[in-house]
């Protein structure tokens, strides 16, 4: 077995007549941070959602940590325990407190006792700087706070891989920094991460590799400096120009 955490081969995903992913090959090594960029509708979210089978692939093979996710015989719930996901719109459980949001999965899945899970929740809230929100309800939090709780919630299952789908794009600008800081800390600790984001600063600083997608295909990939400063493909150039001009 190689050091690959994510190994996607020839992934195709159609929504009816809409061919969204047209044969994606995509790899992520252990401890690697990959930033996915690309124009709207290019299939970034779909690719990410296929990685933990929130979407069922039409064809192709997805192996994560040696487990074939695309095989229907694989216990997908078990596989997901190992793949944390952070959503653009946070998706905190509205009916539960912050602590319960974080402790629910570990206790329900028998990973920790109630006390252990509560302890762990407190520690995780410390790392994201929100211990004082321990008993708060999600609706009383700001967007940035919500997203940091969502990250803590995903981390509570002690995943090997974290997927982020535009974690900061629903936030007010002054909140973005806090969330990115948490993500940088994670990256430093050696977490394997796949991040869809338009935060080019973050990509330059943290990413080991940038993957540019367009029209359901991987068009270009490489070191951030290479892709950002010397893009090879015309579409990459066009995209980067737009993003930088904004």
């Amino acid at each position, binding site marked *: 077995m190689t050091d690959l955490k994510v190994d996607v081969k020839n992934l195709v995903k159609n929504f009816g007549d809409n061919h969204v992913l047209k044969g994606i090959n995509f790899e992520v090594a252990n401890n690697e941070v990959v930033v996915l960029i690309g124009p709207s509708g290019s299939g970034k979210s779909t690719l990410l959602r296929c990685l933990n089978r929130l979407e069922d692939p039409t064809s192709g093979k997805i192996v994560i940590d040696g487990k074939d996710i695309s095989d229907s015989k694989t216990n997908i719930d*078990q596989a997901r325990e190992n793949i944390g996901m952070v959503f653009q719109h946070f998706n905190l459980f509205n009916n539960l407190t912050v602590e319960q949001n974080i402790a629910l999965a570990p206790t329900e899945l028998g990973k920790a006792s109630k006390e252990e899970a509560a302890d762990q929740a407190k520690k995780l809230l410390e790392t994201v700087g929100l211990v004082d929100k321990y008993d708060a309800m999600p609706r009383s939090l700001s967007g940035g706070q919500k997203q940091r709780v969502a990250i803590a919630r*995903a981390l509570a299952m002690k995943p090997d891989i974290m997927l982020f789908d535009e974690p900061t794009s629903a936030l007010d600008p002054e909140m973005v920094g806090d969330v990115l800081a948490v993500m940088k800390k994670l990256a430093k600790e050696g977490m394997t991460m796949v991040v869809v984001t338009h935060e080019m600063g973050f990509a330059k600083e943290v990413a080991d590799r940038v993957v540019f997608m367009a029209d359901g295909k991987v068009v270009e990939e490489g070191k951030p400096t290479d892709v950002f400063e010397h893009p090879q493909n015309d579409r990459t150039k066009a995209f980067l120009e737009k993003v930088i001009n904004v």
Partner: protein
Amino acid sequence: MKKRFAFFCLTVIAAVAFFFSGQAPVHAEKTYTIGTDVTFPPFVYANSNNKYVGIDMELIRSIAKEEGFKIKIKPLGFNAAVQSVSSGQTDGVIAGMTITDERKQTFDFSNPYYESGIVMAVSPKSGIKGLQDLKGKKVAVKTGTQGATYANSIKKKYGFKVVTFDDSDNVYNDVKTGNSAACFDDSAVLNYGVKTGLGLKVVTKPTDIGQYGFAVKKGQNQELLKMFNKGLAKLKKNGKYNQIIKKYTGAAATSSTKKSNNKKDAESNTFIGLIKQNRQAIGSGILETLKLTVLSIIFATIFGVLIGLLGVIPNKFAQGVSTVIIYIFRGLPLLVLALFIYNGIPSLTGSKIPAFVAGIITLTLNEGAYTAAFVKGGIEAVDSGQMEAARSLGLPFRKAMSKIVLPQGIKIMVPSFINQFIITLKDTSILSIIGILELTQTGKIIIARNLQGFKVWTIVAVIYLLLITILTLLSKWVERRIND
């Protein structure tokens, strides 16, 4: 999941059936269920103690005693009584039923026990003197009776329109209020009514003389039929038969009834008087309505939640089943569903269902379908991101549903639940059609006896409003608890 669900449904239904069938008494002698009319004096009617009396009732009771079998009288209304015999729900019917060739196709009749013809009655105030005055007018009849058949056979000739009602009481009232110009009914019944102060007058001579018979389903319960004939012969021989007929049609009988009617009128013309006099009947009607309501709410909620959940699990087949069940049971009128389950199912399966159980099943299916629809809608109204976030943590569908989505969906559903509970309470009144003695049926029977339609319906309406108010307050209290 699917199998378990089906199993669960069957268990619930079986449990209900068992629970209620367990209440049926077991006797050494065979007990026959006899369907009859709600009100057809002097043949069948409830006296002021709500006991069923009249020529038919005394005959069948005396014959049962004579021949040594037990009977259980079910006042279902003429139509329902006739249907329930042909579907096997009841063993026999005695309800002033005329023996006709057409009916002989489906029933086996006893020897005739009474002879009667069809007469026409009008309001004394109207100037109608005979059939020729009916041109362009409306004529009231009771469904399925000989009077109805006769009216329909001559309506073209005399140019009138026929309006049908389920109860004699409504027929007479329609004539008294002037909506209909006249009514056709059996002479014995109308003459009795006129003599006891019905407020109509008979204007024609009896025609279409017919004979009344006791009936069983064709080819079934032949021993019961034999016993009836034997018993009837005995009663005729020993004078008991004449005694009964005289008791109900003789001058003494009718005038004493008239007197007691008048006396009763005087003391029970007030609301308080009516309530006092019918306290017991109303009380047990309320109790029955409450029993139906509570049990139906419980079962409909269980059924509805399960069918609603079936509609949101990620399985096309399960969703299809849920959609079809909701479509069918929400689409069927409650009345049709009740009659279908009570009369139709026994015809298919050959085994009877007690009316109460049929009523609970009816409401469970109908109210459950509505419940399922809003349960499904409530769950679907929860942001799909909640389910995705839960699943992405590795929580299985059921845990994600029960811990995250359902608690949020239930909050959305609570007002619909309260609404549905109130509708369920109101819908129990429809079950009067299968003869369940709940509040509405109780009202009908009281009116059949005292003809105080307006006052009794007012009382019944107020009681329903009171019950609904209590139910609403209770539900709101629960709602506040859930929302805290």
